[in-house]
């Protein structure tokens, strides 16, 4: 409990310092609860998510960093490894491959990497996964791009 607080506080300070260093990630701690964080990440370039800004919700367990934080997309995203409705993310480092050496910041980086490199063989979004597995890259990209426009880009006007 105390350890997780100290650790999160250190990460908070780190985030304040690194804000400039990584412009694709904006990690914000909840004002009243250090175990709740939100992150804004930019869709990686040369992917259908380019130009979108995606919101993530972090829920940090008290055993952190021995236990991984729970992360989900708040912004709708069409991605084989993200549940379309709940935003749950299928990512090994958020489950069995977690290491206490990871930080919230590095989790964000891992999620950006996942967006650029989907794993259609362990899908949470079957439609998306099937498109990719059947080789319909264009179909997948246009779907993903559409949802990026709909959900992850600022509304015009």
């Amino acid at each position: 409990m105390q350890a997780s607080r100290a650790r999160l506080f250190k990460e908070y300070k780190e985030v304040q310092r690194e804000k400039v260093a990584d412009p694709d990630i904006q990690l914000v701690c909840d004002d009243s609860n250090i175990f709740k964080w939100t992150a804004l990440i930019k869709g990686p370039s040369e992917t259908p998510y380019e130009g979108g800004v995606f919101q993530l919700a972090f829920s940090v367990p008290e055993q952190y960093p021995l236990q991984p934080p729970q992360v989900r997309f708040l912004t709708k995203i069409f991605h084989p490894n993200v549940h379309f409705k709940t935003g749950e993310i299928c990512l090994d480092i958020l489950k069995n491959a977690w290491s206490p050496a990871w930080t919230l910041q590095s989790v964000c980086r891992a999620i950006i990497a996942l967006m650029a490199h989907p794993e259609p063989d362990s899908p949470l979004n079957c439609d998306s996964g099937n498109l990719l597995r059947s080789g319909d890259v264009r179909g997948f990209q246009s779907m993903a791009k559409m949802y990026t426009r709909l959900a992850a880009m600022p509304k015009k006007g």
Partner: protein
Amino acid sequence: MGYDSITNVSIPTTASNAKEFGKKKRVNRTAKLKQSKLDVRREQWLSQVKNKGCKEEINGGGGVKMHSPDVHERNDDRPVMKLEINPGGEETEGITNHYSDSDSPSNSPISHTSSVFGSNRSHSPFTSSSSSSSGGCCSGSMIEEDDGDNGCLDDWETIADALAADDLKNDNLESPEPPQLNSVIPLEPEPVNATMLGQDGCCARAWRPDDVSRPQSLPNLLKQNSFPMNSDRFYGFGAIEFGFKKVCSPPSTCPICCEDLDLTDTSFLPCPCGYRLCLFCHKRILEDDGRCPGCRKEYDHRGQGNASLKLGRSCSMIPRH
């Protein structure tokens, strides 16, 4: 790699008292050690530091009793030994070549050449220093350590562990060692090596005496600076410093719980990958999933000291055969 330098420095210094005898004995001792098998050798070394240290100090030149059948055939891969035999400086190139050989197990051409280059530059000045001071200063420091009731043994073990882990982690980043020597010991500032520091990114991070992140086990070694320095000292010291730097340079706090690392924690090396954390977090991880946060490999439950020692053994075999 670095381990060689340590053995060569520590064992000889234990015994050397008179100039000539001391030197000869060092040669004999290392030659003998070379013949025996590796693990035997390591235990022998440890016990020598512990037990024989004081006894042979009294004997002084008693090292003659060690037989030395093939010193000259064997010293190809024992750079430090050569350095001790010929402090005259005409063998600089040979020394540095051997040095880098035993230094980089991977022997990748790049690291090889660069380390040759570096050590050439940094060591040539030292070879001119008198060897007579070596006996006096070294034995003096060892006496001091022996008084400290095996304190030195613990230290060397720590260093051995650190170096062992270091071997595993950075096979091809060996080149910064020679410049490191000078950056650590500011007694003889050298413009040449200053530029070397600039070239080599990681060398700039050597500890200054006032550095906060400097491990607490170091002051023991720095104490010996009060004795006149010579080339041997520089050699061994640099290797130690080098090993320490890479393994434990970053944390003054535990990366997991962010508490400050105390003396025990700083000398605690639970995993050969070199990832450090406090004992408290280590225990919690052992109770939980038992894998090292740094490399995700299972911690060895038989105790971290044994594990690192064993690994150190196996990888110190590489450069020798």
